């Protein structure tokens, strides 16, 4: 008699498991739905958006939400719903790219710092201390103001760099803490005794063991990066009009017309809040899933 255990793939496909997950992590399920919707909208915005997000229609200035314009129109008669849908692409591209760059560089520095120790560790950590002294948005403001704009394929690379830089020390500090535990593991000593190079030990033996904190930080910082992008665009240092971007939708004419057309700020504000909420929750769920201490 043999005991047939379900494979992980089969388990994931089981409707019961999905229901079970939704019951155990209801907020996590909500966050998945929001992120999925956002990603779907961002990827397929040309198909999903009811209108061209840049098309001006002076005959429809400041139209209230209706069947024709679900979220109303702005001061140029542009459809706010379409701009929100396209704005999700801007938020995801800048949010994910800057979080990925910042978290990856931070993780590499954190692992290297833990592995080498001594003076190298000391130097890296002091630099991280300096960067940590500045709040994320303040540091991003300084960097974006200093670098100006450098647009490739419609994306401001310097904006991504500006948001990525403040993420580096935050991830480096967390990943270093995890890597310090890994460094004293016997298999690392064994690899060193076998004469493997430092880079091989770092990338093949240590890095895979700090993936969990890395992924958690990466996810959590997507939310921070989306918020930073929106803040910088609101302050006039991020994305430029007429690009559809949530932060930008809150600035400019929105300040003049929000009394007579509150939907101009209501929907972009809600989109930013929902996205940040979803990614933060997703990070929490990921931590619960990946951290063995939470499985006990």
């Amino acid at each position: 008699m043999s005991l047939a255990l379900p494979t992980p793939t089969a388990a994931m496909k089981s409707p019961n498991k999905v229901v079970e997950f939704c019951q155990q992590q209801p907020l996590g399920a909500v966050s998945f739905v929001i992120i999925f919707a956002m990603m779907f909208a961002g990827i397929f915005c040309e198909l999903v958006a009811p209108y061209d997000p840049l098309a001006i229609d002076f005959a429809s200035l400041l139209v209230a939400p209706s069947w024709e314009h679900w979220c109303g129109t702005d001061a140029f008669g542009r459809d706010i719903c379409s701009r929100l849908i396209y704005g999700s692409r801007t938020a995801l591209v800048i949010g994910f790219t800057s979080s990925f760059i910042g978290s990856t560089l931070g993780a590499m520095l954190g692992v290297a710092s833990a592995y080498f120790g001594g003076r190298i560790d000391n130097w890296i950590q002091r630099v991280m201390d300096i960067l940590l002294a500045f709040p994320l948005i303040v540091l991003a403001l300084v960097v974006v103001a200093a670098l100006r704009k450098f647009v490739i394929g419609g994306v401001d690379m310097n904006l991504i760099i500006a948001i990525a830089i403040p993420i580096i020390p935050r991830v480096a500090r967390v990943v270093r803490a995890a890597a310090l535990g890994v460094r004293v593991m016997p298999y690392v000593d064994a690899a060193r005794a076998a004469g493997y190079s430092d880079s091989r030990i770092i990338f093949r033996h240590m890095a895979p063991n700090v993936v969990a904190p890395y992924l958690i930080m990466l996810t959590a910082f997507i939310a921070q990066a989306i918020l930073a992008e929106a803040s910088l665009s609101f302050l006039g240092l991020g994305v430029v009009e007429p690009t559809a971007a949530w932060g930008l939708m809150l600035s400019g004419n929105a300040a003049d017309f929000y009394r007579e057309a509150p939907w101009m700020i209501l929907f972009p504000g809600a989109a930013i809040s929902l996205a940040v909420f979803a990614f933060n929750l997703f990070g929490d769920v990921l931590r619960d899933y990946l951290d063995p201490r939470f499985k006990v």
Partner: protein
Amino acid sequence: MKRLLGTLSLALAAVAFAASPASAQTPKRGGNLNFAISAETPHYDCHASDTYATLHFSSPFYSTLLRYNLPKFPQIEGDLAKSWTLSPDKKTYTFVLHDGVKFHDGTPFTSADIKATYERLRNPTGGAVSNRKATFSDIEAIETPNPTTVVFKLKAVNASMLDHFASPWNCVYSAKDLAADANAPRTKINGTGPFTFVEHVKGSHVAGKRNESYFKKGLPYLDSYRGIFTLQAAAMLNALQGGQVLAEFRGVSPAERDRMVAAMGDKLRVEESSWTLNLLVAFNIEKPPFNDVRVRKALLMAIDRWGGSQGLSRISTLRSVGGVIRPGSPLATPEAELVKLPGFSKDIKKSREEAKKLLKEAGQENLKFTLWNRNLAMPYTPAGIFLVDQWRQIGVEVEHKQSDTAPYLAALRSGNYEVAVDFSNLFNDDATLALSKYLSHKNNPLNLSRANDDVIDDLYEKQLREGDVAKRKGFIQALEKRLFEQAYQQPLLWWHRIVLTHKTVMGWKMSPSHNLGGDLAEVWLNQ
């Protein structure tokens, strides 16, 4: 009878009091005025500038030879000049200057300073830049028979010359300073104006204090002022509402006006006027494919100005459709004629079809370019958004690039751009002043399209020398037609000026130009 007379005199006094305008109140001396400047000047030199950012910064420190009497605009009055005469052949202007005027460094002002200033304006040397070189090219010689007399001899009759002498850009500099360094005014302030320079903190403010030895006795009324750079419109409006600044002298949009009136009620004074200012679409004809007239013309023909003016006038300071002369002014092209010119058709569908054909002929069906714009919210951002939308409708992809005033001007002046939102910043309705913007680049560096066109230069010259108004109008319209057919640059829309000040700010005078009245000499605080 006595009672009747008493009642009558009381009634008359009440009527007189009620009828007296606010500005007729007795000015009070003292106080500090904080006002907003929505752009920071790239340098201090009025001669090398054509942005209000320089004038709102520099005007309180300088005097000019003549100036406009704003309540009676466009009447001209003396500033450093006490009086002037014009010879019967209309080719010699003689100015008698005020005596006892001193520069802020104590140097006595004489006719030599006027000569040095105007020599620099008409023929700058030593690396100095003059944006008024073309408008003063008729000056043949400047003579200074004595310290209080200066004589300008012209090569030919120039009907616009008195207006040019009243230009707010002609800040009078010290001959001593210019002799030491022709470029000194770019970085050093030394004028004869009502205020002396205290400090310029970059990114923050410019401050001035009363010039105790100002030549107009009793002026200025203010002890000091501070011009605070508020680049973000929202920040400026919040500062105005909160009383951190008491005025912004350039102008706000209709929506901003409505918001502030709703928030501040009767504490706020609103003044409105048409504006001697327009935004232009300029093509750098040295950059392919904008060296092809078909591409330039196609882009102008895709713009629906008539529809745009209706929408943009509700949300921005942009309002009137017009050619090179301010619409409504005597020499402006009438609407019936204007609609026949490229870019002004009211049948936008047909115009765009033609534009597409032109792009196809030029092999530019998939045209992509960068539109340079200034990062001033009003009205540059709405204009940029509008243009991107208009060009997308003929299949053109545009990247909208907005930057601060200094890099924006640097890029446009150096020709480091493809297409730009430029501006024609006039201070009156004089045709010569308006048209000088379109003179060949070799004659006027302010022509940012960098086009050299002898036909335009010739028509400019003809209108300048023509005494008959009808004939002059004919030359102006011919020039306009040539300019738009060649599509080097073209006005997008003309502005409408709305100025908000706290009611405690008195003595400031509204005019159709934000370049005028910036010296603050007669401004006082009713607190």
